[in-house]
């Protein structure tokens, strides 16, 4: 979680300097979800992600340095500088891609789950999506298909209350995302996404069910994003004290740390050490990214096809 947080905090700064081009959507604030979900997965399981994908990538095991290089558009980035923030992917760890198309991921997760079912090894596929994505037609189709084929897929909705600048209460015509999804005959849970431990528990059960062949399930997590929709967004559509309140009371990292400390799982010192390691990793990543080679014009036309 800390790695994701610091990755994003650092990006926030680097982007302000103009060092990183393109549209970047930061995941800070939602870390407990990515990590709480992915801690229950192995490299053989699949995830699909969104435009706000850094957290999912890191949680699923994408190389942080390779990611930073990718965001800097370097030739040795995870995707050779061709994808950038919205398209980070790593097949080796079952990360089937961030996705610039809202609602693009769930049908792919359904497909990966179909493959997993055929392989018969108990793998699962998880799609991450936002509150806004739940209104996209292909997302409904994907869930229906998974349900009728009893596929091992889990549809995670991270409800951070906004799709871009529009409040989720306006665009979703139902009591909740969860209640609507339930109508698809899919077992659905609503949970607190601010608490890593709750996320982890909920997902443990859902993923186990999916692995056992009980068909798809879904979960709606309450959460918040600490930065704008994209970097540069002034966020004046948010309530005056909303962000401070969230940072104060709904910071999943603070909650995590205090729970860990209270339960005596780790000493403050150990936690600090981890934090310092993370900071060093991010520093290293940025430095390596800054010093990595840029791609060359010839790279434009490679990797379009396997063969052509």
């Amino acid at each position, binding site marked *: 979680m800390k790695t994701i947080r610091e990755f994003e905090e650092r990006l926030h700064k680097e982007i302000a300097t103009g060092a990183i081009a393109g549209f970047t959507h930061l995941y800070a604030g939602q870390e407990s979800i990515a990590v709480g979900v992915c801690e229950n997965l192995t490299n053989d399981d699949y995830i699909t992600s969104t435009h706000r994908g850094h957290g999912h990538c890191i949680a699923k095991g994408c190389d942080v340095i390779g990611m930073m290089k990718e965001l800097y558009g370097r030739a040795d980035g995870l995707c050779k500088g061709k994808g950038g923030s919205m398209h980070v992917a790593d097949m080796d760890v079952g990360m*089937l891609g961030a996705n610039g198309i809202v609602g693009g991921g769930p049908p792919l997760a359904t*497909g990966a789950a179909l493959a997993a079912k055929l392989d018969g090894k108990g793998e699962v596929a998880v799609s991450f999506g936002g509150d806004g994505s739940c209104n996209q037609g292909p997302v409904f189709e994907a869930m229906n298909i998974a349900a009728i084929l009893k596929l091992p897929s889990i549809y995670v909705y991270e409800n951070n209350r906004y799709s871009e600048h529009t409040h989720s209460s306006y665009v979703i015509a139902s009591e909740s995302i969860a209640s609507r999804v339930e109508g698809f005959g899919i077992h659905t849970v609503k949970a607190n996404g601010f608490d890593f431990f709750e996320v982890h528990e909920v997902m443990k059960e859902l993923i186990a069910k999916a692995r056992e062949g009980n068909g798809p399930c879904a979960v709606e997590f309450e959460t918040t994003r600490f930065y704008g929709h994209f970097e540069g967004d002034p966020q004046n559509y948010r309530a005056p004290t909303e962000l401070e309140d969230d940072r104060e009371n709904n910071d999943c990292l603070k909650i995590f740390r205090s729970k860990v400390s209270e339960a005596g799982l780790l000493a403050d010192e150990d936690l600090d050490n981890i934090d310092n390691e993370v900071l060093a990793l991010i520093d290293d990543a940025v430095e390596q990214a800054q010093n990595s080679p840029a791609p060359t014009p010839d790279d434009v036309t490679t990797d379009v096809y396997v063969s052509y």
Partner: protein
Amino acid sequence: MTEITFREALTNTLHQEMARDENVIVLGEDVVGGTGNPHVEPDFVGGVFGVTAGLYTKFGVERCIDMPISEAGIVGTAAGAALAGKRPVAEIMFCDFMGLCLDQLMNQAAKFRYMFGGKATCPMVIRTTYGAGMNAASQHSQSLHPLVTMIPGLKVVIPSTPADAKGLLTTAIRDDDPVIFFEHKTLYTISGDVPDGDYTVPFGKARIVSEGEDCTLVATGRMVSFCENAAQALSEDGISCDIIDPRTTSPLDEDAILDSVEKTGRLVVVDETPPRCSFACDVAALAASEVFSSLKAPIKQVTAPHSPVPFAKELEAAYVPSPAKIKDIVEQTVNYK
């Protein structure tokens, strides 16, 4: 060699490839038929054009999968399964429905490999029907190969004979890139000799349908036989034509086309799509750029007009390029001074 229909060639190929590679799966609307009815055993239909007949009975419900009417979901499912190691062959009943699943084709399947820096493969085939000729009106008669030919990352196949149907579908299924495979509705019932056993036709390699001196005709699918008819009639007037069937519009066998135009000095491109931003334009522009000095006459296109496909028999017949019209344009081209 065995003489079978275009449809049989496709069905046999699916059987053959599914038997060869257990990663090959088939999915689509009514590809089985009867699924879900508690009172009957399924496998009654095998796709509305009968191409997937028998696959369910042979390979089971796990590998021949009936899908809901959810074109985006179908293509997305296929693309996701392909990313995860399967080789799905999905059926989109009519290419007219591509408007519903284009995102999954254009922004997902076509771009994975590139966006992900060459590390992903998406070996899926989308089989679909196209073309006019059955009075199926505006939403069931379109020829949309240009729509996907323009998209980098996709390969586009249009067989015109039973043998090519087999050879190209085999290649498509074994290919590691996403392939859109167009089957002209009116060709299912044509017959022809098809090689037995394992048979592949490479992508990007045109078929030289006939050889001549005076004009090059380029056409795909149903239009190939229309060109043959026209050429037959023209030969009676002493005009002989090269007929080139590119077989795949992406990749395109540019050399075959250009070599021919260098020889004949004249080019007529025939296609049953509307004219704008079409495959006919594409081939014409290629020649106008690459073999300009060989050209003896304007490059002409014979296409459908800039209008939707009409319903009534008389209208549809006037809409589709006819052998007579092809003949007429070739004559004009050959007589150009």
